[in-house]
């Protein structure tokens, strides 16, 4: 017999071992997220996918689905919280969408649009962050890193390497690379690695490819992130 949970009052099926995120995605229900990717171990760090499970806040990407759960995903309270989280991600880094080459293809920007984020709300930190352009083919712009760790997980789990890691704590946290010099050029990263293509923002980029996709043909030019995500995550690996 099919096991089920309710999501915003709707009964959806799940199988043992599935998270709430996986069950919701399979059922065609979008839960906003940035650090989650169906190909990699859940991390539960961005907190955008926070849902209420039987009245308690849980990260949908890590919380296992279980019989009898009553899950709230779409509520004003959760949308407001998600918007605040997204605003904090913007003000903690230096995200200048108008000139960023990832604009139109950026998940952070697309989530902000989806959540109807119209301003930063919080004071901008303007942190001083360096770029690492030392690699011949891949560039790290630390200004745009949101510490989702997708590059860390992609490098370890799919590329079989250990190029990226998060070091430091709190406001001093930053993305580091695994080389004695601390420079990307001295790691074994290759431009064809999954880790070089997984960044949801414009923090890790393939050099000399910016703006090649015209406006109107970028990922989020005609479809919101909920549509794009459900389509891609339900068909990944096909």
């Amino acid at each position: 017999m099919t096991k089920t949970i309710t999501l915003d009052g709707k009964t959806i099926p799940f199988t043992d071992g599935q998270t709430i995120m996986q069950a919701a995605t399979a059922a065609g229900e979008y839960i906003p997220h940035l650090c989650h990717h169906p190909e990699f171990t859940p991390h539960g760090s961005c907190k955008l996918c926070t849902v209420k499970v039987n009245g308690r806040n849980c990260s949908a990407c890590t919380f296992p689905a279980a019989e009898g759960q009553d899950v709230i995903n779409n509520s004003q309270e959760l949308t407001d919280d998600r918007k605040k989280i997204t605003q904090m991600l913007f003000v903690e880094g230096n995200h200048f969408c108008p000139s960023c080459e990832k604009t139109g293809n950026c998940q952070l920007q697309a989530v902000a649009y989806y959540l109807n984020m119209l301003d930063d709300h919080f004071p901008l930190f303007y942190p001083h962050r360096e770029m690492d352009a030392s690699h011949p083919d891949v560039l790290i712009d630390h200004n745009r890193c949101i510490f989702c760790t997708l590059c860390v997980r992609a490098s370890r789990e799919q590329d079989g390497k250990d190029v990226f890691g998060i070091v430091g704590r709190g406001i001093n946290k930053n993305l580091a690379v695994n080389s004695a010099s601390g420079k990307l050029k001295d790691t074994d990263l290759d431009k064809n690695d999954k880790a070089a293509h997984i960044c949801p923002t414009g923090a890790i980029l393939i050099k000399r490819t910016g703006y090649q996709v015209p406006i109107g043909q970028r990922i989020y030019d005609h479809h919101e992130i909920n549509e794009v995500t459900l389509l891609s995550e339900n068909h990944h690996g096909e």
Partner: protein
Amino acid sequence: MYEHLETAENRDTLKRVVVDPVSRVEGHGKVTLLLDENNKVQQARLHIVEFRGFERFIQGRPYWELPVLVQRLCGICPVSHHLAAAKAIDQLVGVDPENLPVSADKLRRLLHFGQVLQSHALHFFHLSSPDLLFGFESDIGKRNIIAVLQDFPDIGLQGVKLRKYGQEVIRMVSGKRIHGTGAIAGGMNKHLSKEERDTLLADIDQILEWSAASVALIKKVHCANLPYYDDFATIRSNYLGLVKPDGALELYHGGIRAKTAAGETITDHFDYCNYNDLIHEEVRSWTYMKFPYLLSQGKEDGWYRVGPLARVNNCDFINTPLAEAARVEFKAHSPEAMVHSTLAFHWARLIEVLHCAESIKELLHDADLLVGELVAQGEKRYEGIGVIEAPRGTLFHHYQVDDNDIVTKANLIVSTTSNNQAMNESVRQVAAEYLSGRELTEPLLNNLEVAIRAYDPCLSCATHAVGKMPLQLELRDVDGVLIDKLIKHDTGDIERV
């Protein structure tokens, strides 16, 4: 001729009149007049009071961001910055202008014609036509585009629609009306679709008709007010701009031609990559805008004018028939080899509108816009220079990059900067000839703004330098007594006095 009015003696004893802000121009500037007890003007200056700093903060960014990043200098002519930067980064990927794919070259030209058309239309109809149609000293309530639309609805509406058409050209080529993408290193990122081409073609004959009508209008206004229009704010200057190899008017790519006020050639078909051998820039302490001059003519006499007046004056002919006929009439109205009337900027500007409309029509029938190679690639270089004729004049972008593709140095000479000395001269001419000795009123002061407006200055674009501007810092106590004073010189040296 009016240099003596740049700095007055005994400034503390003079009466100060300020026009702040100068309105109906792009960006923020002010004019200050210092008057003696008889209201005689002793000093007149145009100050640019905003500060941008693009040259500094694009350092450290990857070069392929430049066309998209630096176009944010301006919301009126972003395409010009976009294309000047693109021409510079073409060189960084080893592509010289003659090696740009034919389709990319034509798409860029179409984009630029759309840009010049919309910018000129905006300037003439939205910003300047109230002065020209109602009078320089008319009621302030009348001096705006809304009043033009009420009293001259056909003219006002044609202006709005001309601008809209230019912006549609930009949108279709670059994806957005303002701050699109389009040009990338070595080419363009898309063709024009057949649907887009057909949409633009459907309206082009109407646009041509309105453009021709606008030339007729400005000719009528100018000639009906002679000799006033030929004298007001008029100064004799050198002129600089790009021309085609055959001497024709050129907006996208060519060699530099500079002529004296008498029409004698200073340089011709000069390779703009060597611009440093042609032009230097001077810094003055009272404005954020620099003062470029032709090196061979010296600091005192080497200042020059750029923009529509310079281009139409400098070229031997225009390669589209209606604009060429208009140019011949324009030149014939003046007995001199060069037209020096500052108000003739408007006339020249509308001749260029007509040229753009004709050129867009010609290009739209070219199949290369729809198909063909879009991007070329060559050997990496470390320095790139792109020069283009922006609506307001010759625009220079110069970049250097390191091994990692990161910008290490940038120099921009923006069109309005080249007109800095000329605008100040025109302000001083108007102050000396039309205001001096009179009781100053708001309508009278508008004469100063009319003079500045003729140049269509973009003050936002022109104030990008950083780190070189002189600065004086004074610390005073509550009684106003000077406690400490620091001066930063234009060399960057700081002195405590």
